[in-house]
């Protein structure tokens, strides 16, 4: 199915595949705890073959941090996006299918979540509940489900009056059964186009939270590495440049793949 994949989509998919491989192979690529002190502090990149990307002000291996940080970023990004999309599908389906007061109530809640500045909400949640990886995932998920909910609701509303739904109703299926088994499969397709954006935003939010010191302190993360390098910004800017670039590359590859998926969907729908 390479026909509809643009150049951007192919590049994005290739980079994303490399990132996933790095995340999986992290313990072999850079054995040991990436937070361990292993060498002379502030070695610039490309000077010592043992530390290809240099060391930070405590003598920690930047390459190891980068490799292990891939795990955190991708894992948090995917988990948060999956949770957000799951909640969005659930809310959108129930609201769209049941209609009436349920719909009204759920839509008001969705509106509230779209009005409240979501990054502030994520900050407040992580601060109130504690800065563990699970809480970070939860905070990101809770602040990014409304887009999916609205999309799914709109799709359900347009699908629920089709003939095959009436047929299922005549066959005696329960209302929620019809909603989730008959209507939902048709309604989630457009959600595929949102996955790329949702994962990308989740990775960005995770890195911002980590930059502000709101992440598991025992786990290396790209945002945390940038925050750490900020103290020596003038003398060793590479400590900021390298992990930040990693975030950008990850988000870019995810959004390119998402874009390509969305465009393919458009093409297949127009047929």
């Amino acid at each position, binding site marked *: 199915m390479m026909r509809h994949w643009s150049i951007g989509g192919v590049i994005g998919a290739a980079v994303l595949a490399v990132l996933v491989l790095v995340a999986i192979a992290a313990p072999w690529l850079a054995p040991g705890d990436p937070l361990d002190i292993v060498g002379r502090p502030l070695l610039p990149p490309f000077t010592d073959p043992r530390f290809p990307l240099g060391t930070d002000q405590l003598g920690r291996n930047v390459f190891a941090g980068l490799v292990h940080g891939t795990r955190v970023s991708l894992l948090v990004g995917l988990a948060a996006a999956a949770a957000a999309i799951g909640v969005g599908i659930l809310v959108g389906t129930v609201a769209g299918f049941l209609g009436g007061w349920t719909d009204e109530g759920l839509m008001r809640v969705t509106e509230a979540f779209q009005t409240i500045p979501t990054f502030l909400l994520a900050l407040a949640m992580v601060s109130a*509940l504690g800065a563990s990886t699970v809480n970070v995932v939860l905070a990101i998920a809770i602040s990014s489900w409304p887009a999916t909910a609205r999309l799914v609701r709109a799709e359900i509303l347009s699908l629920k009056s089709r003939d095959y739904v009436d047929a299922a109703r005549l066959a005696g299926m329960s209302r929620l059964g019809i909603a989730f088994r008959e209507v939902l499969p048709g309604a989630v397709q457009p959600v595929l186009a949102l996955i790329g954006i949702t994962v990308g935003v989740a990775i960005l939010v995770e890195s911002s939270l980590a930059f502000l010191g709101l992440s598991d302190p025992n786990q290396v993360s790209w945002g945390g590495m940038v925050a750490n390098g900020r103290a020596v910004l003038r003398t060793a800017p590479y400590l900021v440049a390298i992990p930040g670039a990693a975030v950008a590359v990850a988000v870019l590859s995810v959004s390119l793949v998402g874009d390509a998926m969305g465009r393919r969907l458009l093409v297949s729908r127009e047929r």
Partner: protein
Amino acid sequence: MGRTWTLIRRRLLQAIPVILIVSIGIFGLLELAGGDAVDAYLAVTGGGDPAFAERLRQQWGLDAGLWVRFLAYVESLVTLDFGWSVVMSKPVSVAILERLPNTALMMGAAIAFSACLGTLLGGIAALRKGTAADAGITVGALVLNAMPSFWIGLIAIVVFAVKLAWFPLGGIASFDRPDLAIGRVLDVAWHLVLPVTVLGLAYMALYVRLMRSAMIETAASDWVRAARARGLPRLRIVRRHMARPALLPVVTMLGLQAGNLLGGSVVVETVFAIPGLGSLAYDAVSQRDLPLIAGILLVGTLMVIVVNLLVDITYARLDPRVTDDRVRAGGA
């Protein structure tokens, strides 16, 4: 002007459930967090015996049941009493009001900057569809969108403040403020160039994409073909028949982006050491000052509602098709 007032009244009515749900959510979050105002107070003042803590709880009405506490919370919100900030050691409302102008200034400038540059670039990309310029603008917007704003900010500091020394490293004004008012204004503007640019660039991509696709759509419309057939000058067609209708979704986006920019201001204000609402949120979060965080969340929500109201009014002025009926239906 009856139409505008109807619109404002409708929007304010719609805002009520939103504010209610948000305050319920914040109350729930504070309950989940555990540790109340007394704990926070004692932690700062150096502790006290349990009896004293109990007395304080009774005094502050914190020993009552959940429902009573919630009502007390709502009552304090209605009277705009957001509680006491331990970190700032002043009322939350005062702490927020002090910081609000800086953030409002920065956000307003960043919204204007990102929307103007974004629509301009998106329009150019649409007019030059399929060329190198289009590809460059589209790819550039994607790349900018992928960069974390704290990173763009730090890189901007290294390049423009440290290496080139064109702009200050941070802050909102110089220590030795100029005497003249105009000098002070210029001084603040000079300090805001980097943060506003960074915040604006980080959120510009959406405008580029939106404007590009909307312009491509209007370019293929019948009315543009008709205008061409009438032999109208190209620039006039582009401005009146293509750009103007394409701007409507962009205006809607302004309101949706307001909340995102406010969130982004936390990181940007922290990077550039600007005393605003965002850096206040950071201080509150890093020292777990929950009443302050709750207050900022509520004020942030109100700010988004206000910006959306302004956007709706602008929209109604721009698009004569927005009638009373559509206002009532919550359209636009």
